[in-house]
């Protein structure tokens, strides 16, 4: 192995588990998570962020893995003509159950950043401030996109009602 390959291999061993867990959580398939993990890692290598300390790299890992796996799910859902199948965090309040249903039904109709925000809140049970840090966006952006997501989701449901 060249020094560069050794460095890449070491980084992969260190951060691979984090990527794999994220992909497993979203894709719920070991085989799909395995494929996604290496693809996400290669995307991260393209970015200068991978030079950071592991903890500082976490938002990049989370964001890249979330976006990539949501795209994988969206493509699979389109091929199979069904909704995204997401598992919700146990800590998400039951009061938000209607929002959960909305999320499940229409998530794939939104751009990937909005999807990631909806998944962070409704699937991962994250507070908006934590999610903003994880995705590398402002809390204002999270709030704005979440509001837009819910508004459009309700409109969509309303239009779909008989």
């Amino acid at each position, binding site marked *: *192995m060249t*020094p*560069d*390959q*050794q*460095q*890449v*291999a*070491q980084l*992969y*061993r*260190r*951060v*691979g*588990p*984090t990527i*794999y*867990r*994220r992909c*497993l*959580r979203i894709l719920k398939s*070991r085989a799909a*998570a*395995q494929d996604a*993990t*290496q693809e996400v*890692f*290669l995307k991260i*290598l*393209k*970015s*200068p962020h*991978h*030079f950071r*300390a*592991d*903890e500082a*790299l*976490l938002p990049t*890992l*989370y964001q890249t893995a979330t976006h990539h796996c949501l795209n994988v799910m969206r493509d699979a859902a389109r091929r199979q003509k069904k909704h995204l199948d997401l598992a919700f*965090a146990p*800590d998400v309040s039951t009061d938000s159950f209607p929002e959960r249903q909305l999320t499940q039904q229409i998530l794939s109709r939104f751009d990937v950043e909005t999807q990631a925000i909806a998944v962070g809140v409704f699937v*991962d*049970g*994250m507070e908006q401030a*934590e999610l903003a840090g*994880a995705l590398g966006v402002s809390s204002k952006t999270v709030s704005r996109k979440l509001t837009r997501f819910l508004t459009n989701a309700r409109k969509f449901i309303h239009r779909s009602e008989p």
Partner: protein
Amino acid sequence: MTAPCPTDFALEAYLLARGHTPTSGHIQHCERCQARLARMEEEGNEFRQSVYPATIDAVLASRARRSWPWLKPALWLVPAVGLAASVLLVVRDPHPLADYIGVKGGSVELSTFTNDTGAARALSDGSTVSSNAKLRFKFRTDHACSLWIISVDASGEVSRVFPEAGSAGATVSGAQELAGGALLDGKSGPERLFAICGTGRLRFEEIAKAAHAAIPPGESSVRRQRTIGGLPPGTLQTTLLLEKGTPDRQ
């Protein structure tokens, strides 16, 4: 009132920081979080035991098709102090993927970078560099410890590399780039770097004394001796040999 359990994201931060996060207190007393962590560790082991071996070749092959695209963007990381062009990195411990010397449960890694040939490059054990090369370091440890980086040359001289000042080592945890760097002395011949990280307050004088005892003057002993004995129990160390050639024109 009981604090809510941290999210998976916060638990990932906990794992990456090896327990040094604001959620540590909660996690240590929460059975549910400990069960979640155990599951996450299990999945991490799954990655190491099956995913990594199955995918590393493809990752490296894909990587090889690219020409180090991250080097240029990373240049800004190097302080402008005298480094007009700069370097990158690396570091490396002599034994790939098992590159540490230490007690069970602990490991340290030192990565060293230079740009002495005009292009950024990572240095591996035994690399040839210009005798006045500028070096940058990145260090990683499993556990917080007090770090010293020293160098030993063929004359037997032990030099302090990092931290530049202070009577104690620098407290480090996780992976981080080290401030400053090093400028080699312009003399040709072998020079060995040691990164030494201990849990107690270790003074430079103690390390220098141990290094003098372990490495007598002479090129062969610098090249041969890879460890410094006589350090307190639990002290981790790793080393990198550099072969200094002729100086570059500055």
